């Protein structure tokens, strides 16, 4: 009875008693999907050795492959209206999110806000959002190249040589310009981004995207500065949106999911230009 859900007739998101997303229902299916914020600790290296450099502006190099939890239970508030239903989540003092579904949209929006990332403990942090689902993707996921062709990726694999990854996490990260997706025989899950990010699928059914980083050491590739941006004396705050689309997979010969992804991609990357005009001196009739 404590489960909370928001949505419309096309898509419905359910949140568990801890305040986390737990399932998504579409017209065709219900799938277990959860989402959480995690972080990798940036490696501190010895920049004189090529194989032991710090994580920095050029390279993502976590100290270990283990991710750290941000919180075990976000505080949530649910707002419902005629046009949109929203869940406002507060994960901690520096991570919050609004999850929303508009009445006519077949996808969900995740508007995250991260920062200023605390560094009082002297540890650089690289924050990710991770979506875990029960889709049996078997190590395969898809990332785009400049918003055009989707490229097939297989975890711990390179197409043209036999690879042995010494850095399991970083070695599986790929540039995501606008989309990352995975699927099995029945279902397909895609996340669209509003900006280029790094991303991966570190487990079957799982998609993750790096949304903010604050690091304390230079990686010795040339910039000669640590990636530790500040404004007004504090670390930067980043705000952005992910769009989640769940539907039938292409293996199911149904193009509907990818059509929705493509149209949503266009509308989000080329949104309307907004112009504001003060109309204090113009009545509605004058303006008309």
């Amino acid at each position: 009875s404590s489960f909370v859900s928001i949505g419309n007739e096309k898509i419905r998101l359910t949140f568990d008693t801890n305040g986390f997303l737990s399932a998504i229902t579409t017209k065709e299916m219900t799938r277990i999907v959860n989402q959480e914020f995690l972080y990798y600790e940036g490696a501190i290296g010895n920049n004189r050795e090529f194989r032991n450099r710090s994580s920095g502006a050029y390279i993502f190099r976590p100290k270990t492959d283990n991710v750290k939890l941000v919180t075990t239970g976000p505080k949530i508030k649910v707002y419902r209206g005629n046009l949109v239903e929203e869940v406002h989540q507060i994960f901690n003092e520096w991570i919050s999110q609004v999850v929303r579904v508009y009445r006519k949209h077949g996808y969900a929006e995740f508007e995250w806000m991260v920062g200023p990332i605390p560094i009082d403990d002297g540890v650089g942090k690289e924050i990710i959002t991770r979506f875990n689902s029960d889709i049996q993707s078997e190590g395969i996921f898809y990332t785009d190249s400049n918003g055009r062709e989707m490229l097939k990726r297989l975890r711990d694999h390179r197409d043209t040589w036999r690879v042995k990854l010494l850095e399991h996490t970083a070695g599986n990260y790929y540039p995501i310009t606008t989309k990352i997706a995975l699927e099995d025989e029945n279902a397909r899950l895609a996340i669209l981004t509003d900006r280029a990010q790094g991303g991966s699928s570190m487990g079957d059914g799982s998609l993750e995207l790096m949304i903010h980083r604050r690091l304390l050491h230079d990686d010795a590739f040339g910039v000669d500065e640590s990636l530790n941006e500040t404004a007004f004396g504090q670390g930067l705050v980043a705000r952005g949106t992910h769009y989640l689309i769940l539907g039938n997979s292409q293996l199911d010969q149904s193009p509907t999911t990818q059509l929705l992804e493509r149209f949503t991609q266009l509308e989000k990357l080329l949104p309307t230009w907004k112009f504001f005009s003060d109309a204090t001196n113009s009545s509605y009739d004058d303006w008309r």
Partner: protein
Amino acid sequence: LPHLSFFRETMGIMQHHDAVTGTEKQKVAYDYARRLNVALRACGSNTKDILNHLTSGETPQTGIPDTKKHDYKFEFKTCDLLNISSCLISETSDRFILTLYNPLAHSTFEYVRVPVSTLDYIVKDYRDVTLETEILPIPETIQNITFRNSRAKYELIFLASELPPFGYKSYYIMKTNKHRLEPIPDADNL
């Protein structure tokens, strides 16, 4: 043309690999931001002129005035801080116009979110139709951002539909005296 050229040159600089990936030095990052800001403001005057031509009934290409031509000129300003739910015009004006230009080659619709300081607004389109609206609070985590200097506590949401391809639509938004209730979250919040 000088405005457009400045923007073109800036976009040329933005294609340097350090600008694309963010591996530039911090002071260079500041300079990129400054250039983009100047370029956007410069081209803002171009878009303002074009939109004033279009809305006055004059065809910009031919300059032939329409019989319905009028003399109203509007500012058509962009709000750079919409990404932190802040816009000086919408949060301080009792009446303002929002113009949406659709850059897509197909008709589209969009749920528009406008930052406002109070609850009581109505939105009308050009056919004198009052649109359905919703007001939701801007999360406190955003309102409390240190450098966010904004009166906006809410976002006014409405559906802008049938936006024509490569075309625009305007909406008249005004405060009313009708009292609207504060948005209340569900009772089953955790």
